[in-house]
């Protein structure tokens, strides 16, 4: 009797057996594309992982631990934590802890085709940065034998951050971003403190007049 697992195995054998020039897509590589966003309060790391068809089962074994053909939330979180253990993030030579903030996993069947993309996002708070130059370093040691890495700094959304340079090793498993941080002028700081207070005061005032609209200070 041919089970679903057998069918998948046969499919994989058939796909892997195809001449590369015919199939022409990611087969035995695990693409890990990382985008590092430096923000005033921390570092955001977004990683998109695409296992090729020939390594998808190997990767799925790391994810679908109970082998029920479904990636549960717990399994997704566990895999993200596994990946996290293979990451080292440093700011100014100091190790920082990453916290999983978001993730999205396609179904195992989609991953097995070699086209499925797993998306994970981590964030690490930085203690208040002094004005001047700083360095962020990220090393990815996840499944090194089969992986192809991309490492890039996101264009900063805040004018307080300026990217000075980026360096990578040859396969981009290690990347370093040098950036400068200019702390906002004191008037802006005062504004940041005063503005929410004013908004809150206005909200309270309008609230007393019976308005239902809520204003959330940001």
């Amino acid at each position, binding site marked *: 009797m041919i089970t679903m697992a057998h069918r998948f195995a046969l499919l994989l054998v058939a796909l892997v057996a*195809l*001449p*590369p*020039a*015919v*199939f*022409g*897509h*990611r*087969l035995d*590589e695990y*693409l890990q*594309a990382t*985008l590092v966003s430096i923000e005033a309060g921390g570092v955001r790391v977004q990683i*998109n992982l695409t296992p*090729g068809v020939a390594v998808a089962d190997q990767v799925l074994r790391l994810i679908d631990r109970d082998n029920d053909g479904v990636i549960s939330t717990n399994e997704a979180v566990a895999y993200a934590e596994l990946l996290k253990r293979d990451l080292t993030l440093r700011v100014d030579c100091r190790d920082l802890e990453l916290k999983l903030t978001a993730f999205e996993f396609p179904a195992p069947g989609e991953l097995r*085709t*070699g*086209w499925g*993309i797993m998306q994970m996002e981590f964030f690490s708070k930085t203690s208040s940065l002094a004005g001047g130059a700083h360095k962020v370093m990220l090393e990815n040691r996840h499944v090194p034998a089969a992986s*192809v890495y*991309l490492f*890039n*700094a*996101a*264009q*900063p959304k805040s004018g307080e951050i300026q*990217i000075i340079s*980026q*360096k*990578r*090793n*040859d*396969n*981009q498993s290690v990347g370093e*971003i040098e950036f400068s941080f200019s702390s906002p002028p004191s008037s802006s700081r005062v504004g940041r403190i005063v503005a929410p207070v004013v908004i809150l005061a206005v909200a309270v005032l309008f609230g007393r007049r019976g308005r239902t609209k809520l204003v959330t200070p940001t």
Partner: protein
Amino acid sequence: MSKRIILSSALSILCALLGLNGFAQESPAGKPTEETVAAAKKFLATLDESQRGKVVFDFKDEAQRKRWSNLPTAMVKRGGLRTGEFTQTQRDAVLAVLEAALSRQGYEKVLQIVEADEVLKKTGGQRMFGRDEYYVSFLGQPSLTEPWMIQFGGHHLGLNITLVGDQGTLAPSHTGAQPAIYELEGKTVRPLGRESDKAFALLSSLDEAQRKQAILGFQMRDLVLGPGRDGQTIQPEGIKGSALTDKQREMLLDLASEWIGIMPGAIAKTKMEELKKQVSETWFAWSGPTENGGAAYFRIQGPTVIIEYAPQRLGGDPTKHIHTIYRDPTNEYGAKWRKP
């Protein structure tokens, strides 16, 4: 459709033989929006009610807007109608829409990319490839005044054309090819050949100090901002336009015109003028071999443009399998013209 493609490819080859290299130099007057709208309405008129329901999406349908990929349609489902399901009249009508909406250069490129996929199907025997596996969809109704969008795509092609009156943008769109070089009627066809040739010419024009800035010291194995990377913007790298000579800046713009010139004359001209103003702030980066024709990655990145060209190491010779992306971080899907 096949007849038109062959005729079109033959025309391209003929033009190359006649030395008419670079359709980008065609008339800047371009084609009127009216022609595209009329062709789109004519195409819709060839469809029955059920087909029209499948091809036209609400303009605000964000899921459909982002449903495009470099991958075969068997792997990533597209919305809209499949070319393989069309009658000959409907196929001709779809081609007429593309012919009206694109420049001659762009139309030729699209046909050559589709034809490459047909070659891939024939040489590999894979039914998921070929000219029957492309999808067309509209977001919104064809209009001379209201925003609407044409999507045409499949394997190695994701055209997202947003039109608002006389304004239009191709961002974001994907072009690719496998094989990136093939024979048709005894002639060699390279759908993305000019992109590669112009990039190598620009690289060759750089002196040692400029090369040191332009060439990235690491491998680039794929597009950074390919399909599915909407909204992401990376820090530019390489050599800045301000460090190039006037002649090199012209070459950089000419290289970018290979993507921008997919759109018809007037729209492409407006975009090229914008780029020209920003050329000093536009970067050129290179990774890989520097010998002419090698499998090299390059990127153009400026305030309103991101272009990447990435040979794929999967599937044999990487020079024969290319992925590219065109983006405008300030106007993806015509964002700046769309009503909130």
